[in-house]
């Protein structure tokens, strides 16, 4: 179990979390920069992060840098990006085995950490500009990634649905921004974004793993503690999305075998853990209302799942359906929501759902990535609850509260990526 949990401020808007659990054989390092999400900068922010992990002032070749980390027992580095509410987060991750597990006791973790710092603080720049060669390659990769978003139909449908659900809000934007904007990104612009990130982005740094973390913590504290900071972003992640006066109905055709339907419901209920219990009861388990009825009883879909964004106060229900069944599925989903609103569930269903949720939370302890991620999510909520502390909150949820919570969710939008046959299939 966790021997040490410590979160402290090491600079203006910079927090360092250290988590030690001796059962782990490796340490992970997570570095996240958080900025307001806006169409103009979304792609450039991601591209800047990609370039920082491609080369640095000391190792100007991507393959040499990759080889360096591979030689440190595969201490892989990675770039990540994503939207959190109306904010954008870009970041870097590294995983490194503990020195005591290397062959012959080689010391690798300190060197891996120092190389990561070189990537962030000593970028591969000439006269203030990123390498022209890697800029062109990574920019093309960014454009390819934007194009490839359509490849995964379910996640593409989700992105298109968000466009309707969060219309007019930053959260509606795709993670990488638009293709047209990305095409116009310049190297000069990236120098500005790099400077902005170091100067103003909110920063969350985490070292989590089996121990031997003192050197990593010292290196991070020194490197990040000396940055000159100003106009630091203070992300208020909780930005509930306003409910539309009338539910929006949008349908887009695509060559598909199966339509993908997203229904969004919004609520004024601000009790995160109460909402989690309700959402899980409705469609978050194989014994939930939607699984038992839409899938098992009516055989309409393979999946009909519920997810909840507490920061936007929005619940999503998504399913894959035959075109002919979308109305039927929609009616069945509304019927199950009504059942919850009328208290048509047993105490057993409620208690079993709580048990499932609590077990899921506790399982975060078994992965250094998961437990680091758990506390990162807690930070977005302005809390630092442990899984056990959240279990206590879950246990306090009553059936009356669940009914009231269910009543608070109202339909906001329905988006369908509608299956149409290929031209040649239509023509027989």
């Amino acid at each position, binding site marked *: 179990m966790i021997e040490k949990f410590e979160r402290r401020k090491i600079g203006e808007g910079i927090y360092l979390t250290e988590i030690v659990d*001796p059962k782990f054989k490796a340490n992970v390092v997570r570095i996240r920069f958080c900025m307001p999400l806006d169409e103009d900068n979304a792609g450039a922010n991601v591209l800047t992060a990609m370039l920082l992990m491609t080369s640095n002032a000391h190792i100007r070749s991507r393959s040499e840098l990759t080889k360096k980390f591979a030689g440190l027992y595969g201490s892989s580095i990675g770039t990540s990006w994503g939207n959190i509410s109306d904010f954008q987060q870009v970041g870097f991750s590294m995983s490194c085995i503990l020195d005591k597990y290397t062959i012959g006791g080689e010391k690798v973790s300190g060197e891996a950490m120092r190389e990561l710092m070189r990537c962030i603080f000593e970028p591969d720049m000439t006269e203030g500009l990123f390498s022209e060669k890697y800029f062109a390659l990574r920019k093309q990769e960014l454009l390819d990634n934007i194009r490839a978003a359509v490849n995964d139909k379910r996640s593409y449908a989700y992105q298109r649905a968000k466009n309707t659900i969060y219309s007019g809000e930053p959260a509606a934007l795709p993670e990488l921004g638009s293709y047209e904007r990305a095409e116009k990104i310049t190297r000069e612009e990236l120098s500005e974004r790099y400077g902005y990130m170091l100067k103003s982005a909110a920063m969350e740094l985490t070292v989590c793993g089996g121990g031997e973390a003192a050197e990593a913590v010292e290196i991070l504290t020194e490197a990040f503690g000396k940055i000159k900071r100003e106009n630091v972003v203070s992300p208020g992640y909780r930005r509930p999305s306003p409910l539309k006066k009338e539910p929006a109905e949008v349908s887009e055709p695509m060559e598909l075998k199966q339509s993908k339907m997203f229904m969004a419901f919004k609520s004024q209920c601000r009790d995160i853990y109460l909402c989690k219990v309700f959402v899980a009861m409705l469609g978050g388990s194989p014994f939930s209302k939607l699984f038992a009825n839409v899938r098992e009883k009516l055989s309409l879909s393979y999946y009909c799942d519920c997810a909840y964004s507490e920061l936007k106060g929005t619940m999503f229900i998504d399913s894959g359906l035959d075109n002919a069944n979308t109305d039927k599925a929609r009616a069945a989903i509304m019927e199950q929501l009504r059942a919850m609103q009328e208290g048509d569930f047993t105490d057993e*269903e409620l208690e079993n759902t709580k048990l499932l949720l609590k077990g899921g939370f506790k399982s975060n302890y078994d992965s250094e990535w998961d437990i680091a991620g758990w506390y990162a999510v807690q930070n977005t909520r302005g809390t630092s609850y442990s899984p056990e502390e959240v279990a206590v909150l879950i246990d306090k949820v009553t059936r009356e509260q669940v009914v009231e919570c269910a009543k608070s969710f109202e339909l906001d939008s329905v988006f369908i990526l509608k299956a149409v046959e290929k031209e040649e299939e239509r023509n027989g």
Partner: protein
Amino acid sequence: MGKSTREIVRSERFGEQYTVIHHFSGLDVLVWPMPGFSTTEALFATRYGSVNTCFRTAKTGDFIQVPEGIAHYLEHKLFENEDTDVFDLYAATGASANAFTSFDETAYTFSTAENWEQALEILLDFVQKPYFTQENVDKEQGIIAQEIKMGEDSPFRKSYFDLLKALYVEHPVRIDIAGTVESIAQITPELLYDCYHTFYNLHNMVLSIAGNVDIDKVEEICDRLLIPAEDQDLETRFPQEPEGVAQKRVVDKFPIGLPIFDIGFKSEPCSGLEYEYRTAAARVVLQLLIGSTSRLYQEMFDEGLINSQLGYSVFSGSGSYFSCIISGESRDPDEVFRRLCAEIERIKQEGFDEEEFSVIKKARYGSYIRSLNNVENCADSMVDSYFNGTAVFDDAEALSKLTVEDCMKALDTMFDPEKSAISIIESSLGEGMQGQEKN
């Protein structure tokens, strides 16, 4: 009734060990306690997957041919008991239950941080109690048809299965695990019972459990719930597979933003320790050949021919198929294939770089250490190695003994451009339409 016996499988190198209980019922039970971990992961698995469509036992006499997708269908249907839904039973334990069917294996799983004993009782009980009726079999048709259609909408899955069809002429890995809407319509309760009684025999199965678990308690639960079975001389048959590929190149179209490709190199199947050595060698060769530190990767990346989505894997199973597969996105997949084959020829002449070989070996060792941190991975590894007739730590031993010469040999035998194929998914969207889709 015989007695159960125990065997310890230990790795001095990693300081890890698990116990094999040869249970008197005929089942082997693999238990890996992991101190400090909260969760318990269990798999009750049978050596039965989508490729097992032709078989016989002492009882059936002649070989029987069953519809494609039936193993997966059976997996769905086993979750319904005569009197209740299995998920409702699990619900009271807090366990998260699931199942999967692969080409050569079906497994019923649970993961839980509470009440693992009760969850294990449910697992052992329901897998041994099939209940198929015309009504409940018919009901599943709609659900699985939607699962199949969901898969058909995935260009990645389409590309992968197109490649398998190109690589294999006769072998049933050519067929989608879930079957087709048409093939599953032929499934009846009687056929499901036939398959169940053939493959869900404890001699053909294994129980694997890792994490927060106690060996004595597992054995006590097994003693109570496992119904002893007689070995029934199961024999599965695969068609004779030629050495060569069925088709060199296959192309399909999908509404995607950037072409997707899968390239495969077919080689001789194998099992046991030979499998561990060949797999270890194949993985290192793939990394040396086209991994992110390789010369070829660097060249193609620098030219914008590939992006960081490039991946590779060893595809193998049931001692009847073995291929090395490279997947990715590219504006020109044919050129990627051409360069890859040329690089193989170059390395055959010039050899691998010794220093790069040792870097890759070290990286794989680090990756192995990290995998021992994962309860699910430990439970899965025990099943995989058991079905292969080896032990979990044999792959790490194989890696430690691997030499550059082994890799050169592997390149020769497992990366023959003559026995390779490419599957490409091109975009059906015009340039203009891609612009619309991007926003």
